[in-house]
């Protein structure tokens, strides 16, 4: 059969498969909840600037630490700013930064991982030692050193997150490659006389991709965690940008008598991260991958 004929068939199957996986995810209660939360937050991030009732920068001495009211649904913060507006807007920078950094991290990490997995030998052995060395340092130390040196703008945060969160992906992609290469269908393809590139494209990649998709979802949630933690510590989003991590840090001091300042961003941030994790879990189950969670990194 000429290869031109085979291509549309494969494409069609892929589309069907994507649909099947998605409906499988949606058919699990956790997947349905998770995916709805993620979609809700993504939509909110896009439309929030047009629907917020107040300017997020508007300071008012009269409204300082006022509780929730009919006009200001979530109350006001220590500068009298509307917490409802700020909470709706609070995920935008985090989603933007991690939304760009995650694909970059997964791409370069899996590229190198698959490469090392296929090449093997000395190069692989040595590179894995370097990966180990990077992994043995706490994430916050690696990132903070760069951020403190180069500043906290988006232009620094995105490459920093993309770089450091790509390193563990190398390991995952390499392990997945080793896993697939040992399977019978690869030997079969070799025996059929397919070229290296063809085998990689048609046999290896589709199989590794499943693992990488789940890994990508996980990376995203960890990156969000990292970004909001950095914001909380004062190294992520910078004021007056509304950001959940930053809002929680600001409101913490007044928490005993004005807890609404903490609660709104806490609920929003947690719901997004839990949503991503539930989706990743359901996705892993739908694709038949065990998502073994190791210790926190």
């Amino acid at each position, binding site marked *: 059969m000429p290869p031109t004929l085979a291509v549309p068939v494969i494409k069609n199957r892929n589309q069907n498969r994507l649909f099947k996986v998605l409906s499988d995810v949606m058919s699990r209660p*956790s997947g349905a909840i998770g995916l709805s939360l993620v979609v809700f937050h993504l939509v909110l991030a896009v439309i929030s600037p047009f629907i917020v009732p107040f300017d997020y920068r508007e300071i008012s001495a009269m409204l300082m630490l006022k509780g929730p009211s009919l006009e200001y649904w979530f109350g006001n913060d220590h500068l009298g700013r509307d917490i409802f507006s700020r909470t709706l807007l609070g995920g935008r920078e985090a989603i933007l930064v991690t939304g760009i950094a995650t694909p970059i991290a997964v791409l370069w990490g899996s590229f190198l991982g698959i490469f090392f997995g296929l090449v093997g030998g000395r190069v692989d052995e040595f590179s894995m*030692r*370097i990966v*180990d*060395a*990077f*992994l*043995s*340092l*706490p*994430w*916050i*130390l690696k990132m*903070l*050193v*760069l951020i*403190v*040196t180069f500043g906290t703008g988006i232009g620094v945060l995105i490459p920093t997150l993309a770089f450091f969160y790509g390193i563990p992906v190398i390991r995952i992609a390499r392990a997945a490659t080793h896993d697939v290469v040992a399977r019978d269908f690869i030997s079969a393809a070799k025996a059929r006389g397919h070229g290296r590139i063809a085998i990689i494209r048609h046999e290896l990649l589709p199989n590794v991709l499943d693992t990488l998709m789940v890994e990508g979802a996980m990376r995203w*949630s960890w990156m969000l*965690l990292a970004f*909001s*933690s950095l914001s*909380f*510590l004062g190294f992520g989003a910078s004021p007056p940008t509304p950001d959940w*991590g930053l809002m*929680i*840090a600001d409101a*913490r001091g007044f*928490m*005993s008598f004005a*807890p609404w300042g*903490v609660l709104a961003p*806490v609920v929003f*941030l*947690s719901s997004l*991260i*839990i949503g*991503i*994790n*539930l989706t990743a*879990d359901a996705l892993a189950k739908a694709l038949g991958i*065990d998502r*073994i*969670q*190791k*210790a*926190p*990194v």
Partner: protein
Amino acid sequence: MLSMLLRRLSLGFITVALVSIIIFTGVEFLPGDACTAFLEREAQGKLLENCRRDLDLNRPAIDRYLDWASSAMVGDLGVSVNGQQSIAELVGNRMNNSLLLAFCALLVGVPLAIFLGVITALWRDKPIDLVFSTAAIFAMTIPEFVSSTVLILVFSAWLGWLPGIVLTSANASAAEFFPEIILPVIVVAMVMTAHILRMVRTSVIDVLASDYVRMATLKGVPYWQIVFQHVLPNALLPAINVVALTIAWLLGGVVVIEVVFNYPGLGRMMIDSISDRDLPVVQAIALILATVYVSVNLTADLLTMIANPRLRTLHMRK
């Protein structure tokens, strides 16, 4: 067995050596050095010259690296730029506090995680599993500063049961940290329990599906005897590795929790020294934490090997 041990040891040593090179060159390539960071705006002319001479920064990088690495190996980590104190002493104090926090969390977390992990696996997909597995996802994924903040709000601000912040000084004795340490321990133990629980659950489920368990069932061995004699010993081995990773995380990764509770551990020292750009301290902490990471993982691998005869022979045949 001995050659295996030597191989693992040398690999671990190579990793630590690579870390030290990465740390050193990293700091070397970043703009500015310890002196420009310390002197800030006055970093010019005579002052800068003197400082660089005092800290020996004018010698070639390779010389300085070898000096630093060889004295680090015998425990001399140099002096901090800001306080001119011995880093080994500064870090030692904080290390003790971090170890105290880690020890308490392990004491609570590991037995609880193993217990819950086994329970959720044995009653897989039953209500008890759903409750704890979902709780584990929550505990694992909610940012630590969020859970800490909520716990402080509830137990400290509203109920007034526990102090929400640690006010004890860095070099106090272990006993003085109670009861302030309780809330940080709860947060740390929560995250940790969630991770170990999931790992234990997966591995118990794997073993339950294995041929030898099916064999024992077919032979008519009572259920609980199978669980205690066949399943648990095999299923709990992988937990050693997770606990090892957790120990490394407990010492270097709980920065945010330490900041929230104002706990004087290694993590907060790390943040402070990075903000102050006290580079010698940053280098020292990075090296120590990397060494801890490598050595706990190595220990875990060796323990697993000793406990599991199959792995032992597998490696010998290689």
